[in-house]
């Protein structure tokens, strides 16, 4: 590459870097600053340096750990279900089927609706008195307490699955369609069964796409806020307290911004570790193919 090209490249990237420095760099530096201070909005004249005390405080804060655990359960549960269901649907949509395009267009719509609307929609749809689903289930003799202590987190996961499986379908379907045709023909000539092909050919070939899709979904699932906000507000007890909702509570209801910022940073670290880990796998897979 010529030096001129490199120089042009720098200039072309510069506006983006500048924008990100303003909209992300400054806020992040500020958040880092307040995470080291006892920074409460209602007592701004008492701001003082506390070092890592707020980070250390998180270690012994049971609510923080509960929220972290709930978030991880949510992320892995939701993404796991979305992956299996998404793969199933993508697989069904892969070969010609009547009304294929209509199916595809409709199945993808949930991901384009604002999550708060989805949360509120399901809050009422699953409500024991107002929702139609419990009425139907009752007609079948089934009584399910969707937002009770045992199922609340699972119900939120199901809502996430409803909204975000489409993204999985989209990505996996594209992956399937880009697969080369030859190995499949060869396998069929050799008399391999559908299941064998799926197990030994389709899934291994699709692995990079699967990993990328999982990564994209995981990053997003960590930000779950709207469903909790719209439906359970973290209850029953602390069963659905997710980390972002807890940060919101500490930061915006109690105004202890320093502590909230410290929590946000630990979350960023968790996400970052996970991303690096997944990317490692992704790149190894790419090197193999």
């Amino acid at each position, binding site marked *: 590459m010529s030096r001129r090209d490199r120089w042009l490249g720098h200039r072309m990237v510069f506006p983006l870097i500048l924008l990100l420095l303003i*909209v992300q760099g400054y806020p992040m530096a500020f958040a880092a600053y307040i995470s080291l201070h006892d920074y409460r909005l209602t007592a701004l004249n008492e701001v003082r340096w506390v070092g890592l005390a707020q980070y250390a405080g998180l270690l012994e804060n049971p609510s923080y750990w509960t929220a972290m655990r709930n978030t991880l359960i949510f992320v892995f549960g939701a993404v796991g279900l979305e992956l299996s269901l998404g793969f199933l649907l993508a697989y069904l949509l892969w070969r010609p089927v009547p009304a294929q395009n209509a199916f*595809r267009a409709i199945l993808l719509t949930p991901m*384009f609706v604002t999550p708060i609307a989805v949360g509120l929609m399901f809050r009422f749809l699953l409500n024991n008195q107002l929702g139609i689903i419990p009425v139907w289930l009752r007609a079948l003799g089934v009584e399910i307490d969707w937002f009770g202590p045992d199922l609340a987190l699972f119900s939120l996961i199901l809502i996430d699955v409803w909204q975000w499986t489409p993204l999985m379908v989209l990505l996996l379907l594209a992956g399937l369609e880009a697969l080369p045709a030859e190995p499949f023909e060869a396998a069929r000539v050799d008399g391999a069964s559908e299941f064998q092909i799926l197990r030994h050919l389709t899934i291994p070939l699709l692995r990079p796409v699967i990993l990328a899709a999982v990564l994209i979904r995981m990053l997003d699932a960590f930000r779950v806020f709207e469903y909790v906000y719209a439906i359970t507000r973290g209850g029953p007890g602390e069963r659905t307290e997710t980390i972002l909702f807890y940060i919101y509570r500490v930061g915006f209801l109690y105004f202890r911004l320093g502590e909230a910022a410290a929590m946000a940073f630990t979350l960023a670290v968790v996400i970052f570790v996970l991303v690096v880990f997944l990317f490692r796998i992704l790149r190894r897979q790419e090197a193999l193919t």
Partner: protein
Amino acid sequence: MTGLARGIAVRVMPTITVLRWRRRWPILFRFGMLSMATVSVLFPFLWIFLASLKPPVELIRPSLLGFEPTAVNWSEVWLSSPFARYFLNSVIAGGITVIVSLIVGAPAAYAFSRFRTGGTGLRFLILAAQMMPPALFIIPFFLMAYYVGLLDTVWAVAIAHLTFIAPLVTWFLIGFFEDVPRDLEEQAMVDGCTRWQAFIRIVLPAARPGLGAAGLFAFIMSWNEMFYALMLAGGHSKTLPVAIAGYWTFRGVDMGKMSVAITSAAIPVMIASFFVQRYLVRGLGGGALKG
């Protein structure tokens, strides 16, 4: 089909029907499964749409049909409340976000795709920036917006949306520029264009579908975002998700009107989604994924 083949076909007619049936049932099975999935996707939409047509008395009953439809919710939301203004706010916030993201993101994506500027590290750093928890940014934004006098304007919301949408759009465009054949711009440069001119005159037009899809995608993301919008703009400048949440007050949920708001917010993006779907995959892979 040869005569011989036809002869055989005639002779083994019963087997053929069995065969056809055996070939068909997977299709029927798949059709059935997909129909079930489609119903479970469509049902909540249908339910909320029906709720928007119900008079208040009906909203306390979990019935699906069997009520007198009324347009009173629709007329109240659209005609006697500032909902149209919130709709416009969302359009403006989305518009600003899209325009800035594309202006800033397109050259950067091109540089990443052609010159590998900053290497893989910078590319992923930009994506990593996108995944920071929004709660981290909200306080500084708040103060920033205040000091530059943008608090409670759609501008503040748009700027906050840029934190995650601009990197995503950049990431999105890398894949599309990768698809533009390099010969095109090299030819242009042989004809006397500079690289920058080639980018503007040749590459950008060639990547038009990608730019359009990235823009529309960015627009949808901004349209649906609530957390920043809730914190940064409340009153006259609120966007649709905040307006929807606003029908849920401590004096109760106005289900009828909320259903109208949800339906009104969902329909435009659902239509828009039909245009982006095809391109979404190419973009989300960001050149890392052969879509």
